[in-house]
């Protein structure tokens, strides 16, 4: 073996270590990630989000794969010691290549942008999922460090548990009575910020029954890690039974009870309230905004206005 070959070979074992490490990481991720909330969704919104993810990854392979291939082939073929390879030290411009390196990424981005606009409108969290069906209304209030869900039509409230009938759209109005939070239930769809004095909105639908975790994902202080809840997606009858169960609770959420609840607390167990102070959600917003609706990130919940 010549010196040149030996030198060229020296870094190849290292390259295979990289590959091995990378594939080990991918493999060990592979099995569990497929069952994760993002890749095995439980609602049409999260399903559409996942499909967009797959499409975008696939189209970008047109650019990514050539980079890997070119990097590997060029680094090997044009290594300095390989005197058989062609060497053109002054080759610095060739317009067909320029057209390709600008044109191909640009074409992909055009394709991607069209999808981006379509999906962004379609999956706008403010958009009602089915205009023909009246969604279940829920009001979510972020507190330090728990979530309070108010069901205005049922006149009940729950801490750290969100129940919903399966195959029924749910429209969640969101605000915060503390620092900025962000509400997400990964199995059902994306997140939206919760901000004091403002209302944001998340429209979701579960098309599978099950228990899905949700939580605050915007860091908000020392109790952040435990600020989570379970989402119960149930058949309609079970949901009604759940509502009845909550209505049996001896506790009611009047103004005084709310004040006590709003104080910072951690790892708060699921708590049911059988009655809710009228207009509580709006009062919490008004506390900060003084009725100034200009502070809202968006006035309407239809997605029609900017």
């Amino acid at each position, binding site marked *: 073996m010549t010196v040149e070959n030996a030198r060229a070979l020296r870094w190849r074992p290292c390259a295979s270590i990289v590959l091995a*490490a990378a594939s080990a990481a991918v493999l060990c991720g592979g099995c569990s990630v497929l069952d994760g909330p993002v890749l095995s969704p439980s609602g049409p919104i999260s399903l559409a989000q996942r499909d967009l993810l797959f499409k975008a990854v696939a189209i970008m392979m047109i650019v990514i794969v050539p980079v890997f291939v070119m990097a590997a082939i060029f680094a090997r073929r044009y290594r300095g010691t390989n005197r058989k390879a*062609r060497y053109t030290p*002054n080759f610095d411009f060739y317009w067909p290549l320029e057209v390709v390196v600008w044109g191909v990424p640009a074409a992909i981005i055009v394709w991607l942008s069209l999808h981006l606009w379509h999906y962004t409108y379609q*999956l706008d969290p403010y958009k009602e999922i089915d205009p023909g069906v009246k969604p279940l209304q829920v009001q979510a209030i972020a507190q330090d460090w728990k979530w309070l869900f108010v069901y205005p039509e049922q006149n009940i409230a729950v801490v750290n548990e969100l129940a919903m009938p399966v195959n029924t759209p749910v429209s969640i109005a969101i605000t915060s009575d503390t620092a900025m939070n962000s509400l997400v239930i990964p199995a059902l769809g994306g997140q939206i910020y919760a901000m004091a004095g403002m209302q944001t909105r998340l429209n979701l639908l579960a098309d599978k029954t099950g228990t899905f975790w949700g939580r605050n994902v915007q860091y908000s202080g020392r109790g952040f890690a435990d600020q989570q809840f379970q989402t119960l997606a149930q058949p309609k009858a079970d949901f009604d039974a759940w509502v009845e169960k909550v209505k049996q609770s001896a506790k009611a959420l009047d103004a005084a009870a709310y004040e006590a609840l709003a104080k910072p607390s951690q790892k708060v167990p699921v708590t049911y309230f059988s009655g809710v102070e009228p207009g509580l959600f709006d009062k919490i917003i008004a506390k900060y905004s003084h009725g100034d609706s200009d502070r809202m990130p968006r006035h309407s919940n239809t997605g029609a206005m900017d």
Partner: protein
Amino acid sequence: MDIFGRLTIESLPFYSAIAASGAAVTVLGGLSVVAVITYFGAWRLVLFQWLSSVDHKKIGIMYIMLALVMLVRGFVDAAMMRSQQAIALNSDGYLPPGHFDQIFSSHGTIMIFFMAMPFLSGLINLIMPQQIGSRDVAFPFMNAVSLWLSMAGAALVLISLVIGKFSTAGWTAYPPYSGLEFTPGVGVDYWIWAVLISGFGSTMSGINFLVTIIKCRAPGMTMFRLPLFTWTVFITSVLIIFAFPALTVACAMLALDRTLGMHFFTNGMGGNMMNYINLFWLWGHPEVYILILPAFGVFSEVVAVFSQKRLFGYISLVLATMAIGLLSFTVWLHHFFTMGSSARVNSFFGTMTTIIAVPTGVKVFDWLLTMYRGRIIFKPPMLFTIGFLVTFVIGGLSGVLLALPPIDYLMHNTTFLIAHFHNMIIPGVLFGYLAGYMFWFPKAFGFKLNEKWGTRAFWCWIVGFYVAFMPLYVLGLLGMPRRMEHYEIAAWQPHLIVAAFGAFIILLGMICLGVQLWVSVRDRIEALDLTGDPWNGRSLEWATSSPAAPYNFAVLPKVECRDAWWDMKQRGVAYRRPEKYEDIVMPKNTFAGAVIGAAGFAFGFAMIWWIWWLALLSLAVIGAAIIVRASNDDDEFVMPASEVKAIEDARFPQLAKAPKNAMEDEPGFAGQPAPEAAA
């Protein structure tokens, strides 16, 4: 009012063993620097040759020293987070929430503001003036002020480990959490004043670099003959000048909220946190490109030199850099698609973001095409470049995914995002800076860094990167949020253990970097660079001696085309003795920069702890230093032609001793530039 403001004996970190040992390491580190300087009797040298220097090369070296120290500190934070998360399934781990939160805040703050920014300013200072054939930057004294304000900011972050606590609000300090209502201590104030003070330094650096490139180029160095590194510095400087004021304003308003009880960003009283978030990212997104464009510049230089070939697509690369610079101001909203904007707004910013992938893709292909039909020599800077090319496109892929608002709704605030931006910043920014560090080290110190340890460092870094961050992508798909001090989902833990192991491999990479420096200094005599051109370089910084004379060029070079130094070698006019030398006007050293930096530190400390008399006093000192310096007309000296001749004459015997370029020993060496190669 107390003479020490809110500073009391309880501010010392005796409440926790981990905090106390962090403080002890910081204090001992400072003391050991003092001890080493004293041991070598180097105080005169340090004070009069370095602290008071206005030489852009020395300022560059000091910036990079700061960056390397802060890299170690930032890495320690990262290692603590990775180990905490590896064990914190249904357990509190070893870090309580208040401490863990400080660590992720200081990790981000340090890595962006006090590792990447100084590293960037250091490389630019060291190389850019030499690349354009200039004797200095446009404003040498302002350059020193920039350096010492950066030092002041970094010192505030370091001292927060010893006195008081650091912010828990993350490196972005989102209100209202970062307001007085939720974080009444000094932590967020430490963040604000460290960022504000060093931000002033960065803004002045941007102005300095831009004016230098516009006004100080050598004869014949037209804009489209600039080396690509200088082009990226040019665009980065424009971005700094336009972007940093937004950060300064956001921080100043947050400081007014916290210090004077105003209501710009508070929950109630008419405040609105959304304004801060917009202002912050109006700086924050261009900042990403401020960091990465010069790294792209380094890759452009390195890939051409070590492929022994002209850079492919120079004009494309310049245009792509300009396009990225322009687009970087049109995408900031993608950091908060989830704040309730309409589909129309989100679609616009999403589309602008994906468009950035086009010029970036062009750059990647132009670098690959530079390797095509080259003769590649795998020195450590080239290894970092190839590692970057392959790894960076994965980050580009995840970046385009996050630019799609519906996907961002899912992945925002998860470790997928963390994996994405580390995938841009480690292979993109840090690999670029490390490549530049190993590439230009001989220009700074006159000897090369050890290549064996450089190669080892590269392999540890790249393997460590994959092992540490690929699991975070997976965890993001599993829904794991960022900033979790502990968690209850068992499926996350295996990935976090793998990630912690990756951090350990990166630790080996850090150790290799340290050993490399140690070994290189020890064996420097064998690695001396006598020619000033150790890599058979192409641009003008290789025309000077290594290390360069204080004036860089005894006679300003005349540039006739791109790759000016290569062209001179080709035409046989390199290393030519000029007929005569002329007097050179040089700026005098001054302590005013260091004084302003020290007073800036005192001012920040006073504002953090509400020590009002000290704040006023340090402001007065800054004002006085500026006035004294500005009214001193005797700030330059003339280096006589005879002295220039003496320095230059000493170089020619060295060149005679080393007629051969060190690269000629490489088996892959393709030959010196010769007239026939031009065909």
